């Protein structure tokens, strides 16, 4: 993977964009600008489009974002301070908050007065409550102890252990991994940062020390989990974002492992440096950073920026002249931050970055309504984390050897041989195109696995699904390669041909028709129709396999030159050979277009593929009735041409590799005439063709009836021979040695 050149960067900027913004609400005196001000937190509400805002005082408000409307507001009594952001228990749809560090409150939407709702006083100070969509709320205490809410409510006064002694929790996050909550929190002591990972149900607690960069300090953290690996991103005070990988399955009992870090992104653009304060991950290639952009000699401006970590580029930025509190949240493709005295919502678009898109192979990348991107935060827990191995492979070069080793480890864990293809494909769902294709190529290169066919089917299906999701994406060569090299069938990848039809990938369709044994008649018909409707001029530009037509087609070639063996020394051998055949040939010569092919070689090759494919009359006939009249006539003309060509040889076969057989041609002729009977009768231009066909067939019938007579005589002779052979009595010679 190469780095984007500066020229490409311009294009890359198109791949993420900030859109309209609006104000959600004004903020009170405690909110507002400045690092001490702002909000306590913004948490997702019980439904989509809802957020819970907790200010640094005693008030929590529920908003419907798109309506910019508060739905509910709850306040603690004077003198009490909400110390832990209000969260929503998604299962019970209750709200949970802690005021004065120790007093837990739980209430419902219908409750008005916080004083009268459920209250429990805990024995230790609460740091945060994390509410997980399927795991219930988890309470993190300031001493590092963790309890689920259920456990806590059974005995509110239970003793909570202190595991972090004099470290201070700076950040925490919770995930679901294999249906169990995993809590990660970062602490700080004397400039060193530590990370604790705790699996609640398994009593698993692990402490790591983060590798430290001299003279820098961790400002902000964010993390996501994927394949049992937590990726922790850290915004450092030296204007860089570092990445740490924390495997969840580590069983080593080592004390205080030091996590190696790798540089994910340097927040500097052509001389100016972004002093970030907080950041969020948008997808596997994009992060958004809120901070102040400082250019030498100029006053720093606060701004919101989106960065591409894959190409190390700044994608877009928005200046925020009124100042922020340095906090940013991101839910449902919207950024939330304080801007001046209001809470501002900015929507963004972010599409999966690919080099193809970068070099402009994908058209209309600016078309706003077709861009598909992943909403990081609304994904299900399993999908919350997107493939990072691809990310790693991209960001490999700047990483240290340490990281390489760690990467090896993790890759070995993430992608063991036993990893099912289905899972791999799921993992790759949101990987970038190049990575995706590379991975698939790797899967296929594994060769003869037991269910290799099914695997290939999955791979193709995955590709097709991607094509469907992203209309700009169509891996033409890759698909062609798969279909050509693997023994696929229609049923293994049912959508392949449909998509190929949409994309007018004629070469692929030709190969599919040649190779798939089980194409439904509907698709066969669709192909036929598509082939007939495409102009020969267009087809000439397309690369197709012309093997089946090259030997008998004579459109471009000079007849006389090609068929030298027929006219020899001025006398036609045909005349000597067969009288009736000569008649026909004469007739053909007589008519102007009798013997030249009505379609170009490309179209002929495509039609031959249709002719040679397997079908059942019963199912094909109803579709064939729908063939437009002009196309039907063209097809009939071609079939007639083939039929005449076949009949030129005594063995009624066409030369070349894989031409349609005379039986296939006859079957299609009958089928077409059956299906389009009334059309053929009505159509004036079909009249001449039909009459020619009729004459030809009549001559053939006469010839074959002669053959029939000979066959009868021969059969009788054979029968007489048999009778001579005595069935019931014979004298034979037997030698015994």
């Amino acid at each position, binding site marked *: 993977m190469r780095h984007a050149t500066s020229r490409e960067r311009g294009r890359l900027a198109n791949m993420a964009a900030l859109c309209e913004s609006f104000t959600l609400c004004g903020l009170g005196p405690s909110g507002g600008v400045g690092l001490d001000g702002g909000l306590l937190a913004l948490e997702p509400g019980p439904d989509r489009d809802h957020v819970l805002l907790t200010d640094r005082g005693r008030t929590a408000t529920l908003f419907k974002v798109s309506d910019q409307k508060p739905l509910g507001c709850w306040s603690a009594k004077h003198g009490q301070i909400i110390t832990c952001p209000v969260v929503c228990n998604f299962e019970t749809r209750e709200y949970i908050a802690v005021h004065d560090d120790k007093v837990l409150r739980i209430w419902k939407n219908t409750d008005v007065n916080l004083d009268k709702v459920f209250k429990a006083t805990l024995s230790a100070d609460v740091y945060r409550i994390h509410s997980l969509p399927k795991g219930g709320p988890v309470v993190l205490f300031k001493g590092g102890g963790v309890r689920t809410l259920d456990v806590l409510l059974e005995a509110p006064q239970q003793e909570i252990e202190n595991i972090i002694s004099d470290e201070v929790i700076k950040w925490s996050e919770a995930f679901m991994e294999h249906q169990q909550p995993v809590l990660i929190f970062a602490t700080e002591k004397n400039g060193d940062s530590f990370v604790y990972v705790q699996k609640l149900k398994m009593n698993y607690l692990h402490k790591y020390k983060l590798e430290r960069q001299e003279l820098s300090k961790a400002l902000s953290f964010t993390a996501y989990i994927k394949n049992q690996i937590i990726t922790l991103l850290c915004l450092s005070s030296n204007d860089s974002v570092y990445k740490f990988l924390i495997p969840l399955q580590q069983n080593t009992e080592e004390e205080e492992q030091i996590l190696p870090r790798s540089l994910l992104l340097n927040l500097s653009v052509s001389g100016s440096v972004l002093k970030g304060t907080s950041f969020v991950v948008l997808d596997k290639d994009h992060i958004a950073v809120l901070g102040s952009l400082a250019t030498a000699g100029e006053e720093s401006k606060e701004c919101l920026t989106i960065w591409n970590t894959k190409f190390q580029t700044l994608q877009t930025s928005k200046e925020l002249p009124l100042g922020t509190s340095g906090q940013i949240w991101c839910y449902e493709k919207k950024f939330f931050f304080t801007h001046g005295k209001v809470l501002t919502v900015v929507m963004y678009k972010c599409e999966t970055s690919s080099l193809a898109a970068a070099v402009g192979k994908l058209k209309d990348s600016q078309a706003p309504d077709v861009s598909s991107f992943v909403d990081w935060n609304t994904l299900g827990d399993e999908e919350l984390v997107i493939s990072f191995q691809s990310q790693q492979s991209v960001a490999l070069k700047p990483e240290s050897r340490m990281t390489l080793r760690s990467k090896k480890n993790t890759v070995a864990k993430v992608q063991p041989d036993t990893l099912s293809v289905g899972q791999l494909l799921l993992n790759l769902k949101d990987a970038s195109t190049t990575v995706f294709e590379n991975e698939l190529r790797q899967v296929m290169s594994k060769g003869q696995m037991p269910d290799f066919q099914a695997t290939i089917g999955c791979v193709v299906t995955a590709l097709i699904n991607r094509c469907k999701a992203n209309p700009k994406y169509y891996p033409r060569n890759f698909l062609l390669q798969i279909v050509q090299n693997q023994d696929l069938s229609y049923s293994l990848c049912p959508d392949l041909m449909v998509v190929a039809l949409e994309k007018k990938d004629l070469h692929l369709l030709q190969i599919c028709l040649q190779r798939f044994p089980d194409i439904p008649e509907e698709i066969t018909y669709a192909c036929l129709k598509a082939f007939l409707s495409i102009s020969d001029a267009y087809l000439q530009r397309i690369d197709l396999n012309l093997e089946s037509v090259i030997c008998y087609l004579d459109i471009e070639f000079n007849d006389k030159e090609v068929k030298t063996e027929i006219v020899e020394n001025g006398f036609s051998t045909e005349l000597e050979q067969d009288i009736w055949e000569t008649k026909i040939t004469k007739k053909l010569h007589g008519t102007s277009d009798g013997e030249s092919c009505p379609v170009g070689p490309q179209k002929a090759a495509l039609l031959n593929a249709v002719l040679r494919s397997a079908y059942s009359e019963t199912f094909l006939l109803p579709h064939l009735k729908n063939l437009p009249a002009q196309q039907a006539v063209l097809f009939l003309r071609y079939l007639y041409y083939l039929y005449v060509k076949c009949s030129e040889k005594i063995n009624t076969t066409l030369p070349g590799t894989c031409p349609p057989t005379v039986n296939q041609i006859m079957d299609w002729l009958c089928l077409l005439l059956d299906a389009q009977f009334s059309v053929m009768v009505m159509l004036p231009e079909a009249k001449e063709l039909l009459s020619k066909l009729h004459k030809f067939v009549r001559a053939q019938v006469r010839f074959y009836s002669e053959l029939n007579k000979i066959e009868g005589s021969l059969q009788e002779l054979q029968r007489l021979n048999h009778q001579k052979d005595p069935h019931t*009595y014979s004298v034979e010679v037997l030698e015994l*040695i």
Partner: protein
Amino acid sequence: MGEFEVHRVRFFGLVPAGVRCLAWQPRGDRLGLARTDGTVEVYNFAANYFQEKVIPGHEARSVEALCWAGERLFGAGLSGEITEYDLAGLCVACSVDGCGGPIWSMAVNSSGTQLAIGCDDGSVKLFQVVPGGIQFEQNLDRRKGRVLCLSWHPLETHIAAGSIDSFRVLDVCSGQTVQRIMVNYHVKKVKQECIVWGIAFLSSGTVVTSDSFGRVQFWDWEQGTLLDSHTVSNSAILSLAVSEKEDSIIVGTSAGATYQFQLLPVKLSSQEKRWIRTKPFHYHTHDVRAVAHSSTALISGGLDAQLVIRPLMEKMQDKGYEAALRKFTFPHRRLVSCAREARLLLFQFSQHLELWRLGSTNGTGKDGDVLPLSSMPEHLVQLKSKGPEHIYCSCISPCGSWVAYATASRFHLYRVHYEDDSVRIEKIPKVSKLLLPAYQLQFSSDSSSLFIASARGCVHVVLLLEPGGCRHLHTLQPPSGSPEAVYLLALSADGRWLAAVSGDWAIHIYKLKRLKHHCTVPMYSCAVTAVAIHPVTNNLVIAYSDQQLFEFSIPEKQYTDWSRMVQKSGLHKVWLERDSPITHITFNPKNPSHILLHDTYMFCIIDKSLPLPDNSALLMNQCILKQLPESARQQQLHAFKICKKFQPLLFADLLDEKCLVMVERPIMDIKTQLPLPTQQKKFGT
């Protein structure tokens, strides 16, 4: 060894009759079999399944059921009579009218003392088996509907009787019907009648029925409830048999299939057992009208005339040859006799004889060539036997001028005159009735006398008188007497010796000059299938059903050195594993060391001058020998020269030094003569 001109004859239109019923006798290891033409046969399983006894049929005496009462065999049929067969005399011993119209079924109780018959009028009657015959004992409750099948409860207290649409259980003591169960109750097509073709009463009180709807059903007779029902086939299940241990059932369908049911634990080592359909077999092309269950094998007989014995692998100690499937279509005896000098063949059918003259050729050729015929074979005469009785035996004299045959009650002798193109047959009048019964006929080589194998070990000697007459000369008898009929005869070419084999497998040799008993061949524990006396050495060659071969020197009254050598070194394994018996032995006078013999599937010339093959050698090596150069052949030669080209082979004989006749009966030819199967399974239907 040499080339032969083989007259390959396929115009013997024998169609064996279908198998109608089977009766297994566990103690004697014998199987009684009745065919649709009334023929009753006994197969001795201990003697390598040899067809030991054949009692020819009778037009009016169909057999619908066979039963063994101890060692005694009873049959009953649509004539309404119960017949006891004399297995020593190979004839009907006595018969008693059942007085209930045609008899459809018969069953014997487990102690073999009582016979129950099911009659057309719906009655079930009990007969006591008494010495010398049977005696009517009791009429059980009569209900409407013919009784098609019967089964005794092993404790002899109850009888289950299957009829149309229902079966009943009768109390033997009171004679009352204690339960009547409708079997068509569950069938939707109400109008269609359901025939209970087979029934079995298990000691647990379960009654098993098989019916025309293709079901095998298990009933609790006391409750009258259906315990279990298996729909086995779309076609009727015509026959059913239970093993003695009551752990396995075989049923036969009209589609030619047979199925095994086994009583198996529901779970491994569970006490609860259920009847499970386990093995399907499809050996027959036609209705399987009869099945039997021996302790080790499933036996089925079909209208395609085949008797099939399927040994159960799990019951066999030896998994090899013993466990192989056996199929018998053709009788284990000769139905063809040959007049060597006149080149005539006499074919014996059940009720007529056909006399054919062989064709001839002037051509010569190499191995495998078909020679051009200079004259075609000629059907000379068809002799129809009058009366309902089937033919027991027939023979033509070597010169072709005498033909004799016998039925149960009549003996016929004909003088045949060949006049240019026509044949005239003259019946010899006043042939003594004393000569009966006749089981085997043999003319002397000079056609001057006829030997008639008869009952009680007797052989009658009849002098043939020109121009047309006969005189009973003498009756040869074994010195100690014998109850058994003589079934094989062998005469020496010089007319000095006669060997007679009786049903007790004893071989007596008579000196014909003095009409005296000469000696007895040492007893061997197996049935004799063929005997012949060598024309030069007067050695008697004996083939036994276990495929052993013996050579007995008549003048010296002892086995020959060659025979001892054969016994010492043993015959080839493949030879011993053949499953059809040698039915004819003959010799080549020009090559005294040669013995010609055949069974159904091979023709063999044994060259006594050559070494015997050991088990490592290839027994059937003719193909290989033919490919070897002359020099290399010598090391490969062994005594057995086997030709399997002619199959199934009913008869083979030497016409002259270089000329053989082989009578084949291709199975396909028989199949085309059979009626179409009732149910034909077609692919995709």
